[in-house]
């Protein structure tokens, strides 16, 4: 998983005054972007481009790490050994994805500790979807199907992002992500096909709760995405929030039919003229409430991260001390040999 279009920051103004030298560099930079070229870590880039990327990549990384929590809630209670092994593999993947992304952000000159501080102090955001609870086993299947499905829609265009270290991380992530969506659909299919009436009801209940938050993952409507235009200009973003959302709706309606569930939207129907599905209005007040820290699990998620970090401090300290001791030992052995 799990990026969310994170255009949730106020519109940022670029510095108006630039030196002549900077203007030349920026023109060369723009030409490179226009030609479809990649920007590497050591290349010159406008400060605003760097800042935008640090924000987006680090928030993406945080989302992967926080995304482990709702799934971890079911690691000990998966219905079979097979499902447990699959879930553990998926959770491990999310940790790995967070790591690829932190590493990509670090190439821009921010440190891992700075990013983690920003998350723990509440300064940095992560995808709002993880502030909803996983109440039943079906939620794990629905997260794979809908949440990872939405994430894939978001992430595939990012493999062509102009910033190459981010694009490379996204290639790796997208390659692994497809398993996440398929295992979720597979788990739901088993419940719908072979399950009892009650088990099918659990699946439908999970779909009802996750459908709207999944649509919110694509971020605010284009008309309210203040930084979208600049990100498009710079090749950080390739497809608009609304276009991706529409693509996701069109793709999932058929999948829901195969599964035998319905979406909780009475206005959802095929529009022959547009060649797309129409769907009902999204409750953006809820989205902003959750982004603003007042979702069902915001406090719990952050507290779990902070606790894990604090309680792991002695392990990090011990590993550092051990490495230092080993290095000293090696040094003194060398000296004795000399």
């Amino acid at each position, binding site marked *: 998983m799990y990026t969310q279009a994170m255009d949730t920051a106020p519109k940022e103004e670029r510095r108006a005054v630039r030196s002549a030298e900077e203007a030349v560099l920026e023109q060369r930079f723009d030409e490179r972007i226009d030609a479809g070229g990649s920007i*590497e870590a*050591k*290349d010159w880039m406008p400060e605003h481009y760097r800042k935008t990327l640090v924000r987006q990549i680090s928030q993406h990384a945080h989302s992967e790490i926080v995304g482990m929590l*709702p799934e971890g*809630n079911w690691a000990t*209670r998966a219905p079979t050994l097979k499902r447990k092994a699959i879930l553990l*593999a998926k959770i*491990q*993947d999310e940790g*790995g994805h967070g*790591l*690829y992304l932190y*590493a990509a952000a*670090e190439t821009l000159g921010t*440190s*891992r*500790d700075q990013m983690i501080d920003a998350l723990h102090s509440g300064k940095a955001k992560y995808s709002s979807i993880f502030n909803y*609870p*996983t*109440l*039943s086993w079906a939620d794990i299947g629905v997260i794979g199907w809908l949440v990872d499905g939405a994430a894939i829609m978001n992430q595939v265009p990012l493999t062509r992002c102009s910033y190459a270290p981010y694009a*490379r*991380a996204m290639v*790796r992530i997208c390659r*692994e992500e497809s398993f996440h969506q398929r295992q979720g659909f597979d788990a739901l299919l088993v419940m719908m096909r072979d399950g009892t*009436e*009650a088990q099918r*009801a*659990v699946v*439908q*209940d999970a779909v*009802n709760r996750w459908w709207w938050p999944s649509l919110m993952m694509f971020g605010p409507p284009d008309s309210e995405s203040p930084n979208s235009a600049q990100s498009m200009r710079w090749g950080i973003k390739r497809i608009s929030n609304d276009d991706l959302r529409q693509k996701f709706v069109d793709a999932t309606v058929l999948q829901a039919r195969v599964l035998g569930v319905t979406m909780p939207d009475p206005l959802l129907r095929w529009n022959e003229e547009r060649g797309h599905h129409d769907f009902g209005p999204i409750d953006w007040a809820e989205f902003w409430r959750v982004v603003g820290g007042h979702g*069902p*699990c915001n*406090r*719990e998620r952050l*507290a*779990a991260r*902070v*606790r894990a970090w*604090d*309680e792991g*401090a*002695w392990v*990090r*300290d011990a*590993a*550092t*001390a*051990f*490495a230092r001791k*080993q*290095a000293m030992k090696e040094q003194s052995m060398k000296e004795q040999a000399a």
Partner: protein
Amino acid sequence: MNSSTISTELPKTETTAEWPKTETTAEWPKTETTAEWPLWEVFVRAKAGLDHKHCGSLHATDARMAVQLAREVYTRRQEGVSVWVVKSIDITASDPGDKDMYFDPMEDKVYRHPGFYELPDSVNHM
């Protein structure tokens, strides 16, 4: 069973209550945690016969830990049969600012490529 009875049976683990801070958390000395573990670059050989290829980076206290973590992070699906790690600060790289000066002189040396030489069709597979 309908969905409302299901929700009453839900496990109560996901509460919104904040985690209690353990006493020890507050008392741990913060001496070392502020110092980040060094950064390592990871190279993976996909299969015997191929080059090691750079695939990313990670933080680790020493080389042994870096190799272990590289395995967990970069070869979860048998992507490799061998891993190299090297401290990022030990890598010397060409300066991207020197790119033109460094690499462009090769641009006009087309005679270094086999396609430069036009040979008769009968021997052109040479």
